[in-house]
């Protein structure tokens, strides 16, 4: 016998001559584990009830071994899918025209580029600069802009409602309002170039916010005084969570108009703006969506 065969034989003897494992025992009928349901007002424990009053964090969800129960996995995957779906959504050009908005393009050519090149989403294409020069009203108090941002779905969902309410608010306060417009693949800082070109005193951009778990329908709005390329985040004020379960379109519009009014009055925006002179509600950090964590998955039989 060769040395190798000898080694194999010796080890095989040590590990058990026939098979390294003894035969598996007979399978026994399994009892299903206790039914775990994603916490709902009907099914939740006292800890879950307490949690529901204070936080949207998913606590009290139990475990199987050290992992999640199946219904938690499905809930989580549904929430993640909702977020990813919103990010991947695109704003059709027809939608902009159907809604009677001036159709603007940034320097971004596709969605992938939009995600990877924020610099291009902050600037208008040459054709859109031209369109703005010839077709948009100039030297206005307020220039509102709608954009897809990180959720076209949110823009399509409630963008027109927020924009309409905002224009109404501004006009009722006696301000001149610029031509309603909408930009595809737009980022927040796009408001600087547009506002500067049009000579707007205050520029407000409303756009889809970065989706969170389970949410893709939130809009944010950013307001800047004396818009010009080179403004930074500290020059802006913003409100977030504009959607059905957060700040309603109407209350968002009136808060945005309050902020714009304060900017016109104080001649500044961002960290320099004295918010104590603005109606309350604009400074508080708001609860992020979803305020109520709803069970997303229902299975019919």
């Amino acid at each position: 016998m060769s040395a190798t065969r000898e080694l194999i034989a010796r080890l095989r003897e040590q590990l058990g001559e026939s098979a390294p494992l003894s035969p598996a025992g007979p399978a026994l009928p399994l009892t299903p584990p206790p039914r775990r349901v994603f916490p709902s007002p009907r099914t939740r424990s006292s800890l879950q009830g307490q949690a529901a009053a204070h936080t949207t964090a998913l606590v009290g969800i139990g475990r199987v071994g050290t992992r999640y129960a199946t219904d938690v996995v499905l809930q989580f995957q549904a929430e993640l899918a909702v977020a990813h779906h919103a990010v991947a959504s695109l704003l059709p050009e027809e939608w902009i025209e159907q809604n009677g908005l001036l159709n603007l393009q940034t320097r971004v050519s596709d969605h992938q580029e939009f995600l990877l090149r924020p610099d291009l989403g902050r600037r208008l294409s040459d054709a859109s600069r031209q369109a703005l020069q010839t077709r948009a009203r100039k030297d206005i108090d307020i220039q509102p802009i709608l954009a897809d941002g990180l959720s076209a779905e949110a823009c399509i969902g409630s963008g027109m409602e927020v924009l309409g309410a905002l224009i109404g608010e501004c006009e009722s306060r006696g301000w001149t309002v610029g031509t309603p417009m909408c930009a595809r693949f737009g980022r927040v800082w796009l408001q600087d170039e547009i506002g500067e070109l049009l000579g707007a005193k205050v520029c407000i951009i409303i756009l889809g916010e970065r989706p969170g778990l389970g949410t893709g329908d939130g809009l944010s709005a950013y307001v800047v005084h004396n818009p010009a390329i080179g403004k930074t985040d500290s020059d802006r004020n913003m409100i977030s969570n504009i959607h059905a379960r957060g700040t309603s379109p109407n209350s968002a519009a009136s808060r945005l108009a309050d902020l714009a009014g304060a900017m016109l009055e104080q001649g500044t925006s961002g960290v320099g703006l004295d918010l104590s002179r603005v109606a309350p509600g604009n400074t508080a950090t708001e609860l992020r969506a979803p305020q109520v964590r709803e069970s997303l998955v229902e299975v019919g039989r």
Partner: protein
Amino acid sequence: MTLGAGLQGPVQSKLRTSLSRTLESDTPREHTPLSVPTLAPEPFLNLLATIRGIGYRFDSPKEVLAKANPLKSGDVLAGIAAGSPVERVAARAVLANLTLCELREAPVVPYDEDELTRLVEDSLDQAAFLCVGHLTVGEFREWLLEDATTGDMIRSVSPGLTPEMVAAVCKLMSNLDLMVVGAKCKVVVRANNTLGLPGTFSSRLQPNHPKDDLEGILLSTREGLAYGCGDAVIGVNPATDSAESTAHILRALDGLMKRNGIPTQHCVLSHVTVQMQALELDCPMDLMFQSLSGTEQGNQAFGVSIGLLDEAHALMGERRSSRGPNYMYFETGQGSALSSEAHHGADQVTLEARCYGFARRYSPFLVNSVVGFIGPEYLADGRQITRAGLEDHFMGKLMGLPMGCDACFTYHADMGQDELENLKVLLGAAGCTYLMSMPVGDDIMLNYQSTSYHDIPSVRKLLGKRPTPEFDAWLNKMGIMQGDAPGENFGKAEMIR
């Protein structure tokens, strides 16, 4: 230990040819004066490599470092990435043949323009540097990988390394190389717990709340503790960055830790100046936090400087509530300098290493990169985020830091949950000191996806790791763990008062 003696085998034989280029290694502990950093980096005339007959020439070590980096969207955004995969390899070939000494003389931001460059240069351990400075980056990679090179030997060399050297060798390493060396590195620190001992794997409990609702924060904390999380720190990112709110949250966490006798540390991650004000309110504070960037200008954007952190560190020396001797907590992340236009044309891996060059001044208790948080324009997808997580861990450990990682993604990055779970296991296997933990990995304030309460015990079980010994004892006393297995109270938040 004499470092020169540790260099053996192929490294040593290659070394012979390179010795004549710079310094003698036979006198490793002797302080030899070095030439001062040159202002005009003119001497690099032959940064050239040829692949298949095509020559690739580079103008400066900074360009070589950038182009040697694996593809990252942030380097593309900055316009400094290699133009092709072949050029990338050419840059690595050039880099492999530069000596550590040459890299010391060519910091990516000039000495006169940046206080971090000055800090690194002026405080470098000359004796340790002299042991390795003559090695090429390629030789240094091999020395790190040699079986004979131990964690203790790496620990001795570490104070002689500049961020540029560490970033350079990182670029020549594959993911598994990064893990093999990362796992060798030994960094053990103490605040209340002893963190980083071999065989341990810890977690920060991150019970953030969008309104700083104390009940909400405490409920989440209790749940995490019941899964064995929180031995690195219970650390809250506050929604409101004020001294009052910082003190308020710290007192609540302190109360919970005292009621339940939990051996760990607490921290509220507001701006360092806000935490300094909070200390004036006489609140407990085990660890002090700050985000760091890799250039002076980047740190200005964060509102910090070496002077300010020196002051904060000194204040904590007197006022902290933890035992120490380590009590600072820093977060970093590739892309932070570029996002504030403060990158000076340097790549994000090198700039990340420079954060560690800053952090090590304060012998911190915790350092972690927040690897996928900053967005797809810096790290586009699962491949880039995974790579960056392993790079940051490796570089931090090599520089002697207790390196953890916030393995995470934002929902607009191209990374799936399965890929993120992979990264958690890779980091655990690489000896990463700690990960984050929150309910289903969902940060309800910052809106991103990280590690969950369930992930920490899962990774520990897979890799045969335990929490810090102090926390382990508490978990066993509480019946949350029984030895290395879940105990009867595992997962029961009701057990924590």
